[in-house]
């Protein structure tokens, strides 16, 4: 069922910009079009690009937003998981709680 919804109507998560749009919704309470526009503006791309895996694969690399390792592609020299969320917070201009916790625990100010 989860996969069916993802294919029928989902943005695509980390393969696209789905998680970035979701972050504006859950943190700022932005409705979909507003959240999509905010993310597109911050990334300098079109709203249609946000659901496009090809466009977002490169954009996520450029902004250090994290990419999913697949069979033949690994990204050991790119930001992963918590590291990527530092960049997401900065790129979207929105606080990310786990990043703030990480900074506090690591003594990063």
């Amino acid at each position: 069922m989860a996969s069916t919804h993802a294919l029928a109507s989902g943005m695509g998560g980390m393969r696209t910009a789905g998680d970035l749009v979701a972050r504006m919704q859950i943190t700022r309470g932005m409705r979909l079009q507003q959240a999509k526009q905010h993310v597109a503006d911050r990334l300098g791309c079109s709203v249609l690009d946000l659901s496009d895996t090809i466009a977002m694969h490169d954009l996520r690399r450029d902004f250090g937003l994290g990419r999913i390792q697949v069979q033949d592609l690994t990204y050991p020299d790119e930001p992963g998981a918590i590291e990527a969320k530092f960049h997401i917070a900065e790129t979207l201009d929105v606080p990310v709680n786990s990043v703030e916790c990480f900074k506090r625990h690591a003594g990063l100010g």
Partner: protein
Amino acid sequence: MAQRIPTRLGDGSLVEMTRAEVEADLHAGVEVAARRAKVAPLADDEIAHLLDIFTSPARFSAVDYGDEVVLSFDGAGNADTGLPVMEQVLYQNHHGADMVELWHHDYSYKAVRTVLSFQAQMMKDAQLQTVVPLNYGAMPDLGRYSQPDGPAPNWSELLPLGRIEEARRAQEEAAGHLEHDMLVVAETMIAAGADGLDFDTAGAAGDADLLATLRVVRQIRDRWPDIGVEVGQAAELVLGMHGELEFEGRRLAGMWPLDQLRAVTAAGATIFGPAVNVNTTKSLAWNTARACALVKPVTAESTIPVHMNAGMGVGGVPMSPYPPVDATSRASRALVDILKLDGL
């Protein structure tokens, strides 16, 4: 003889209907919603679009380019690996989840309290391994606080005896315990790095269940303005197990989705999840049309994202452990297309 089209009933069973029968069911589902909840019927072009979706011979149906929505996946993970943190990574990487949710298999805030430190450690570990927003979720589940499982007198036993006032006091007592537990879990999860809290199936035990949830949402919003809060409803109608409870001057019992949205928004939630239960003996077309009519006023008015519940047995998705792909994709597309949802 009219061509018969494969479709589903609400229990997922395969049936064949003619185009005229599907169209009649669409109108009937809308009519039931309009009559019971006093909502406007769907427009002719919306019915026509639903008819196209539900009479298509295709095995799968999907929204148009650019109309994709955010999937918040409450209860992310299948629990089949026995590795709750890894389940979040799997849903992120393999299921296209835009947001995920850590949860305990006894999906209740009262139960979570007893293992909170372990759940919080999982949250901290999971946050280090995920990129998508990661919430913590459970049910308010007020009934857990009634005897013999909890401290408050059992209002379900008192009500049939006509002991109405005692039943009301019992629910108020239980709601106090529930608020305390939900707030403690929220506080701990936020300290562990959670992006948000999900109060899933709010109102399942009636108006006192929902009131406790709204009060906690308000406290979270006041104390942590950047933390997300999703409130997913249990049903299309709030049951008046108490009957007299209000939130900000509005009686909770008998609220349909639009009034539920107003209460949830006033409390400070950032995502609202309306729920419309499936009638297992009615067709997929009937159930989805009814759900669309009930929730249409919500998306028209809302100022916060609306993520409709579309799991097994709600939002037109058949009540089955394995909802068929043909039915689920049609319900998914229909809800997004007609309601202009922000997510599912």
